[in-house]
Structure formats: structure tokens, C-alpha cells
């Protein structure tokens, strides 16, 4: 039970797919230009990797919504402008603070709100802290998995908010984050992002299997 992933052809995405090839995370790489021609129903989970240009997905908005409503698990990573292809989701952008880690004893303000959620298994807050690019609204029925609580030294105007949300939509679920580990890992920056992916990606596969099991149980009842 692996993840199908949209392949936008970006160097950092392709390097990450290759780096995790032996970990059996990804099943199918779906070229973004082929998205409209693929039968998504055959995939339990579909990942939109970091920095996939959201405006390229706007024409596929209905297809993605139908995929989730019919039981799919959609995993949306950071800096993808998800508001361009997911109804009801809003992003509040945050200017990037590249320098917070240079201040002694200052932390970025990332908080793990649901350590028991399967995708966060084994992750520590320091594995989730590199940059905050924005916060997310919480659609109806959503759970906040990670959130941001900046001190003024990190962001003078930053408002606390969600960094990772898991919400139901029809028979399926959307798990969305504003964190962009694939961009940084695949560009060779920020070791925390590699630690994050080493946990998060296998966890996402496990979550996919659990999601499939739940769907099967529901359909049998």
C-alpha cells in the first residue's frame, strides 16, 4: 500500500523520489500533464509534493475533489497554493524567517498537537522546524496535527495557526500541510527536512493502509 504521487518534474521532487526509492514509498509517479487522463480511483492515496504549482492543478480541481469524496486520501504538501485546487481551504502566507535558529534558546514555535496521529509517529518538534511559510484554515471536521505559536522574535506580526490539518471530505480525507520538506531535502538544504521525511513518508504509507482498511470495513457494514 504505497503512495501515488503527482510528478511536476521539479528537480527537488525527482531527487526525493529517487532518494526514497528503496524505501518503497511511492507506487506511481503521475506526470502532472497526465493527471486528467489517469483513473485515480485505483490509488488509495495521492500525494501532491512540495511546490507543485497549484495553478496547474486548478483545472483538475473537480477531479481531485471527486477522488477524495469517493474515498481517496489526498496528501498535500507545502508551498503548493492548495487554495487554488481545494475548496474551503485558506492559506495565510507568512514571510520566511531564515534566521530564527541563530538566536540562542529561540525556537521556531512549532507544536505537535496530535502526537498520536499515525503520520506523526516518532517525529519530534525539532524534526518539524525549519521554515514556516504560512498557516492553514481548518475545514469542518478537521483536526490540527501541527501548529505554530511564534514568539515576537520569530515573527513580529505572525498569528498562531495550523501547519498540518487532517479533515474528512465525503468518504475520503485530505491531509494538508504548509511544511515543504521535499523542496529542502531535494535541494540539499536543511537536515531537519530529511529527518522529517524519513519518518513522515513511511508513516503516510501506514496511514494509507489504515485508511484502506477503514474504507473496506465501512463498505462491508
Amino acid at each position, binding site marked *: 500500500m504505497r503512495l501515488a504521487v503527482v510528478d511536476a*518534474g*521539479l*528537480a527537488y521532487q*525527482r531527487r526525493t523520489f529517487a532518494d526514497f526509492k528503496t524505501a518503497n514509498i511511492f507506487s506511481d509517479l503521475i506526470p502532472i*500533464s497526465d493527471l486528467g487522463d489517469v483513473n485515480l480511483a485505483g490509488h488509495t492515496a495521492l500525494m501532491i509534493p512540495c511546490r507543485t*504549482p497549484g*495553478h496547474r492543478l486548478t483545472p483538475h480541481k473537480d477531479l481531485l475533489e471527486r477522488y477524495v469524496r469517493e474515498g481517496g486520501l489526498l496528501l498535500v504538501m507545502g508551498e503548493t497554493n492548495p487554495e487554488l485546487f481545494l475548496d474551503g481551504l485558506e492559506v495565510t502566507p507568512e514571510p520566511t524567517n531564515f534566521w530564527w535558529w541563530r538566536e540562542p534558546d529561540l525556537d521556531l514555535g512549532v507544536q505537535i498537537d496530535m502526537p498520536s496521529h499515525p503520520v506523526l509517529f516518532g517525529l519530534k518538534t525539532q524534526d518539524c522546524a525549519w521554515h514556516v511559510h504560512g498557516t492553514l484554515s481548518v475545514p469542518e471536521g478537521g483536526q490540527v496535527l501541527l501548529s505554530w505559536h511564534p514568539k515576537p522574535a520569530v515573527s513580529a506580526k505572525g498569528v498562531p495557526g495550523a501547519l498540518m490539518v487532517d479533515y474528512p471530505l465525503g468518504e475520503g480525507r485530505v491531509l494538508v500541510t504548509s511544511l515543504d520538506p521535499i523542496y529542502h531535502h531535494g*535541494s540539499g*538544504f536543511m537536515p531537519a527536512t530529511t529527518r522529517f521525511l524519513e519518518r513522515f513518508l513511511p508513516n503516510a504509507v501506514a496511514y494509507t493502509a489504515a485508511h484502506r482498511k477503514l474504507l473496506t470495513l465501512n463498505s462491508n457494514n
Partner: protein
Amino acid sequence: MGHFIFLQNTVSVPAGIAAPPGDHAVDVIDQYELAGHDLSNADGVLLSQHLDEQHLIECAPMLDRYLRQGGSISLNGPVYQPYLNGLGCYAPLPSGKAQDWILRFETKHRITDGLIADDLTYRQGVIGFWARGSFPPPLNSTVLTRMIGDDTAADFVWHRDGGGRVVVHPGNDVWFVHNDATSAGRFYANMLDWMAEERSACA
């Protein structure tokens, strides 16, 4: 004044592209509409780190043709699959140590004119924004900068067999620091100036 083409694949146009330095003009075209455009009059084509490489590979014949006509390309980022014929694979410096990413200039060149190497190396005292690895420079390349760790070339100008030139920068898009308070911002401005001058010299 030079005339450049930027291929866009991001949701918004980067600030350094929307307001280029000097009196240069940059036309923004959607990456996937490249095939319908005539590049022959452009002084340079600006290729970002955020482009669809698979699509660029399909466009390689068109880019090759443009270079053979005497054009210039700015190639940016730690490319995963080289999309220009003749360019080798990107590799990070094996040590992964910041001190090894400190840059020095190899030679005097129009593109690095007036720049201070430390302004490329450090941003607010932090090393590694400019380059952490690179591509092996093909034959007929002029190396602009080297990383002192093992003296690996970072930025270089590749003079292509058959014509044209490619400015290879193995880090974040050079226009990312277009308004930097240090001399680092001049790299992009100098590069556009140089590309426009090279084009008029060839005309």
C-alpha cells in the same frame, strides 16, 4: 537594453523578473507554451530551478537550436536530470561542511565585475545559500567561482560547441538576490548586461 525570456512555472512571477535591473526587459511566458515562441531575437533565456525538467528535456532541441544561433541561457539550481545536451550531473560537495562552501573567484569576468566573493558566500553570516555543489564544467567553460573545500567549480560560463553560451549557477535562482544590499545582487544585473553585450557583438 537587453531583451530576455523567462519561463514561468511558479504561481507568481519572481520580483527580480517582474522588475529586472537596469533598462532590461523580460518577457514572461508559460513554460508549457515555449514551443510556440520564437527565441531567436532574445538576448537570453532565463531557466529557473522551479521548472518541469521532463518538459525541458523534450524542449532540448529547441534550446540547442537557440544556442547555435548565438543565444545565451541562464541555467539555475541543483538540476536532477541535465536537460541540455553535454551538461553532466549535479553533485553536492561530499563533505557537507559549510566551511567547504566558501567561494573564491577564479578569474576576472564581466559577470563578477564589482562583486565581493564573501558577499556571495555569506548571507547574514550564514554560508551555503549560493552553492553547495555543482556540475562538472564541460570543455570550453570559463569558471567564475570555486568552492574552496576541494576547489570544485561552482558558477561557470559554458561556451558551447556550435555556438551560444550557458551561465550555469548550481544554487537558488540568481534573481532571488536581485535587491540584496551587498554586491551579490550585481551578479544578476551583470549577467543580463553581459548577455546583451555578447548578443550585439555576435550580431
